[in-house]
């Protein structure tokens, strides 16, 4: 071997060998780069490739996923379970974690089972399992927002509502089916549906354009448009009001794309009630979106969700008024919608898609916040947590105040106070609990509208303490005010 390295030709051979190796590696590198550039160029050109035909009956998201694999991949990730400081998607029992709520919900289904809500993927299976549904009879109205329900509405509208089965009558069939399904028992209605929220609920299958499909929202937003309250964050409604109003407000034809990015979420993330006599799902926006405007509507129709088992007050249950709360906040006022923060753009190769793993912006502050806010992630997180800490502290006070009123009324009842004497304290209980629950049931711990949330909690505390004062007046010889 030593002869090889000592000979001139041998050394030259090694040198040439090394040169060839370097050149080969270099060429391979260049070709890899070429392939990468070519792939990026391809990605940028081919945003979507139609593999399957989609229509109004394509319920299964997996089929849509063949055409839109990137969006579908992120949609599937809504199974993830991640906690933030105040939110998250683990289904822990809130009644055990926060025992005050067991007392505040006494006599109501939420007093039996109040688990933290999980991601979109679980909305239907969790609803079928909750003891609120298994231990208490619930109406079919519940499925509007826990399933992809539009094709089922249409079929019921045609088969039981007698609406003709053609494209011209599609909207009528959906509305008729909606009203029929609302009135069914839940156990029957849930058999009509197979999937949690799907692509079809927010996208037109022919054009992918955003759309609202839920009849509850379509009617609710009409009532809101007709209400006359100021809605600076919804310019298309303000524009419709200035017109001749010959047709009712239609979100699908009048709203801007940016408004639709809030409306599609507002289809379900709202306050609602089941209007008697046949449990029609209704959004109480007739007087506006604020907590006291919704309360005024409930008062005007004499609605109560249940009679509190301890205090005897005709109380209200707030659902999840995210759309209403967001509407009062600085982000709505600046034209920032749900999708901007909860479905921020994500880059996949050379293209950007909106992230369909809908979740807390705190889990991706760079994409959710930094597009607008040029501050470090730690700073932005600190700002959000400051709002949430303050809201949480205020909410604890409101919980304690409301509980104190409930216990004061119970003590008065035990001392023999009459229903007449307790009318005012019970009314205060209704007002306080409605405001407290409006914040507690809302999924942002105050962030969606921090000042509005603080105002609501301040009112809750005030009404609860007013109620206690009224209880103290009973039997004291002083007339109730």
């Amino acid at each position, binding site marked *: 071997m030593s002869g090889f390295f000592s000979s001139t030709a041998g050394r030259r051979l090694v040198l*040439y060998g090394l040169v*060839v190796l370097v050149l080969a590696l270099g060429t391979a590198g260049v*070709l890899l780069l*070429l392939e990468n550039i070519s792939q990026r160029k391809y990605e940028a050109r081919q945003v979507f490739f139609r593999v399957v035909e989609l229509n109004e009956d394509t319920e299964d998201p997996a089929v849509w996923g063949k055409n839109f694999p990137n969006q579908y991949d992120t949609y599937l990730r809504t199974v993830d379970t991640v906690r933030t400081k105040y939110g998250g998607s683990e289904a822990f029992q809130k009644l055990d974690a926060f025992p005050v709520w067991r007392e505040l919900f006494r006599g109501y289904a939420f007093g039996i089972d109040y688990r933290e809500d999980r991601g979109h993927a679980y909305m239907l299976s969790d609803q079928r399992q909750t003891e609120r549904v298994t231990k208490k009879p619930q109406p079919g109205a519940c499925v509007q927002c826990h399933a992809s329900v539009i094709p089922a509405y249409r079929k019921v509208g045609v088969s039981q509502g007698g609406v003709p089965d053609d494209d011209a009558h599609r909207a009528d069939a959906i509305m008729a089916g909606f009203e029929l399904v609302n009135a069914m028992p839940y156990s029957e209605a849930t058999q009509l549906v197979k999937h949690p929220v799907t692509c079809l609920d927010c996208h037109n299958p022919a054009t992918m354009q955003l759309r609202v499909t839920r009849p509850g929202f379509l009617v609710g937003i009409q009532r809101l448009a007709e209400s006359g309250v100021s809605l600076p964050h919804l310019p298309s409604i303000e524009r419709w009001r200035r017109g001749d109003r010959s047709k009712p407000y239609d979100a699908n034809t009048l709203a801007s794309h940016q408004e639709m990015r809030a409306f599609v979420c507002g289809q379900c993330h709202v306050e609602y009630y089941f209007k008697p006599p046949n449990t029609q799902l209704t959004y109480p926006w007739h007087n506006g979106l604020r907590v006291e405007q919704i309360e005024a509507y409930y008062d005007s129709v004499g609605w109560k969700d249940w009679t509190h088992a301890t205090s005897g007050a005709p109380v209200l249950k707030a659902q999840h008024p995210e759309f209403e709360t967001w509407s009062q906040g600085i982000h709505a006022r600046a034209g920032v919608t749900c999708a901007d923060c909860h479905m921020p753009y994500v880059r996949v190769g050379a293209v950007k898609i909106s992230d369909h793993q809908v979740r807390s912006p705190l889990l991706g502050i760079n994409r959710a916040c930094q597009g607008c806010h040029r501050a470090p992630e730690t700073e932005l997180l600190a700002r959000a947590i400051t709002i949430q800490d303050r809201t949480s502290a205020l909410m604890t006070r409101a919980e304690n105040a409301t509980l104190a009123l409930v216990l004061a009324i119970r003590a008065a009842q035990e001392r023999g106070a009459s229903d007449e004497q307790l009318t005012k304290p019970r009314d205060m209980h209704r007002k306080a609990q409605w405001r407290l629950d409006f914040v507690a049931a809302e999924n942002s711990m105050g962030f969606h509208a921090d000042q509005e949330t603080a105002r609501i909690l301040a009112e809750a505390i005030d009404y609860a303490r007013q109620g206690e004062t009224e209880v103290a007046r009973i039997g004291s010889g002083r007339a109730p005010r």
Partner: protein
Amino acid sequence: MDYTRTARWMSVFAVVLLGIGIGAGAYTLVYARGASYLLDDPQACVNCHVMREQFDGWEKSSHHAVATCNDCHVAHGPVSKWLTKAENGFHHSVAFTFQNFHEPIQIRESSSLLLQSNCVRCHADITDAITWNHPKTRDRCVRCHDSVGHGPSR
């Protein structure tokens, strides 16, 4: 044993490979519009689509009529201009190829200082009176005038 013959063949092989390498490299350069990076046309900055938002924003900004990407983001000395282009070109290529950059894109400190010096380059007449002698600690023009280059941020 005599390796001369083998070595000769190796040298021929090396030359052929060099030719292939140069050919592939040249093709890649043309395919990736490499020459466009030597010019001042802002279109070059959206060759790879990552800067699309910044480009769109610039088209709507107040500086659209008076300044292109290079006016603000590249140094203006005869040599430093090319050094900036080479350095940023390298960083951009690595980032886009390996897809491992921060979203949304953030300017590096050295580029931010360069940007500041370019603000002053044109606006020296009106900024002379403003004390700005410690660039690393002082707020930069875009801290407040943040929409002049890329338009309002939503």
